[in-house]
């Protein structure tokens, strides 16, 4: 079996502040092969965006990141600065959420895309850079003549497409899409999602898709990982995880995003009481137990690791695997 494109081992992210250390990610492991798609789901604050930021060491300086991030065999977390800068965007690129200030408001969008190209290929002529930028824009469905527009002159959907074009500029093998559709209208969401799916398929890209909307992931990604309080609590093939969740949190999350037309959602109560835990004061034992409908006696005391829950599936619940 060929080595996976991305291998994350025991990733931990701790935010340092004057009020003490706050754990954002508490030991995350996963792997991604070439051309594979992984969805990363969870509520706000579960750590999924921190994972994305950590992969390219983009988190603020006052953050401690430990563990291993093996990208094409190199540990990103241990790279010297110039090698890190070379790896960024050429092997792994991030599609950020397309809010207005994700792009530099005083520079033309064509220039911003072109900057990615010329940073990594300084020998390419200005004209050639322009040509490639035009190509990229067309590729994502934006007419090339908008190359000289400023970000505020584009609609939300167009800005998101620009960010996708930008992410593709250096032909990376892995894309991370961090909430790419969250701020968009539903119709535009569908268009952007389709664009991402087509690109992934046509270019054979590996993709990590981060969102809080589980139902989107189920159709777009091959595998699915659900995060809660800084850890992955369930992972497996997306259809299986969505249809038959092993972890109670996954079940609640799935129920919170009903699929319109699906009979099962008609009268079933959904929604999860309570709030995600404050990372500074995590519950003892299994961090989900205060909100869990099927908590057992040992849940408040025993912190459960991910364990096998069927072929290619893992879940961090005491009811799963041995002892079920």
């Amino acid at each position: 079996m060929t080595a996976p494109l991305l291998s994350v081992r025991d990733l931990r992210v701790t935010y340092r502040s004057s009020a003490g250390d706050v754990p954002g990610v508490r030991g995350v492991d996963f792997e991604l092969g070439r051309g594979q798609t992984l969805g990363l789901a969870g509520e706000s604050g579960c750590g999924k965006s921190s994972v994305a930021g950590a992969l390219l060491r983009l988190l603020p300086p006052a953050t401690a990141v430990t563990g291993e991030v093996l990208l094409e065999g190199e540990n990103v977390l241990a790279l010297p600065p110039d090698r890190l800068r070379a790896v960024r965007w050429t092997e792994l690129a991030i599609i950020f959420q397309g809010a207005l200030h994700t792009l530099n408001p005083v520079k033309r969008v064509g220039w911003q895309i072109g900057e990615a190209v010329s940073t990594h290929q300084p020998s390419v002529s200005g004209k050639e850079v322009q040509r490639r930028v035009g190509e990229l824009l067309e590729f994502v469905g934006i007419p090339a003549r908008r190359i000289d527009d400023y970000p505020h002159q584009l609609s939300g959907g167009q800005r998101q497409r620009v960010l996708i074009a930008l992410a593709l500029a250096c032909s990376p093998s892995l894309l991370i899409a961090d909430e790419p559709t969250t701020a968009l209208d539903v119709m535009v969401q569908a268009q952007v999602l389709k664009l991402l799916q087509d690109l992934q398929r046509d270019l054979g890209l590996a993709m990590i898709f981060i969102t809080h909307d589980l139902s989107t992931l189920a159709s777009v990604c091959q595998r699915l990982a659900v995060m809660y309080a800084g850890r992955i609590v369930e992972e497996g093939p997306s259809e299986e995880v969505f249809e038959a969740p092993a972890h109670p949190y996954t079940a609640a999350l799935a129920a919170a995003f009903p699929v319109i037309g699906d009979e099962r959602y008609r009268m079933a109560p959904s929604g999860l009481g309570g709030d995600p835990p404050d990372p500074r004061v995590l519950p003892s034992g299994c961090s989900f137990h205060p909100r869990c409908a099927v908590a057992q006696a040992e849940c408040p005391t025993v912190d459960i690791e991910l364990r096998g829950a069927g072929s290619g599936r893992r879940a961090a619940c005491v009811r799963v695997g041995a002892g079920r």
Partner: protein
Amino acid sequence: MSFRFVAGKVLGALGTLAFVIVFNFFLFRVVEGNPVGVLFRGRSLTDAQRAALKHQFGLDGSKLDQFWQYLVQLAHLNLGRSYETNGTVFSEIAHAAWPTVVLVGLSTLLSTVFGVWMGIVAGWRRGSVRDHGLTTFTMATYAMPDFWLGMLLLIVFAVILGWFPIGGMEDPASTATGLAKVVEQAHYLVLPCATLTLAYLGEYAIVMRSSLIDVKQEDYLVLARAKGLRDALVRRRHAVPNALLPIVTLIAINFGFVLSGAIAVESIYSWPGLGLLTYHAIRAPDLPMLQGLFLVFSASVIFFNLAADLAYAYLDPRVRTT
């Protein structure tokens, strides 16, 4: 930038100028019931002299007549006659304008350049020693009246160290011409310019610093870094251009204050510009001169603000392309 936008701004400026002109009229004629008495305070006049002066200043017509006469005079750039010297207010002002333009222009340029640079240094690494040093420096210069700062610099650099002359714009005994003359005048310019620069440097630095701190939190910097750019490039290409925008506005706001500061500084250094002219006019008191100066100062600020407004609109693409 549409024609409508520019026309709107220009009209606004002209409106403000019109207000100032009217206000100026009222200041003199209406505020004080006895303008001739105010003008010639402390000098005894016969009734005949008083009547003659009233006629000369057009004070014997109705208010409307006076206003019309005032406007006509203005249109002819007739700002009256200085009581102290024998010249017209206009010629005195015209003569003294250039030294002030040089002083204010150069010090604005220097405060902006150095202030922005210091602000970047302090704001990029917040909380560092440089940052605290900058805050302390700014507090100190802000709290000092600019004329006192001028006095201190004069004492240290001209009196104690003797590096620079005590006052004036040129050596009365020198016969230098051409380039040598310019160099000589530049030598006299150093201290007044340094005073005015230091007085406003801190403000530019503080604004640039806080602007940069705001910008540092923006997402597009993360994106720039993710693309693989070096820190220096992220700062230079992405952070600074955005952080600079408020500085343009600040230059405009400050211009009025710098001009006021020039009055005090020129007095200290006897720099023969509009400020020194104002100082002498106050001592006299030479009211026509003060009025003329007030008009000139106000008009300069109005038009400078207009220029800055338009410059900002041009520099910020979000304003330019609407």
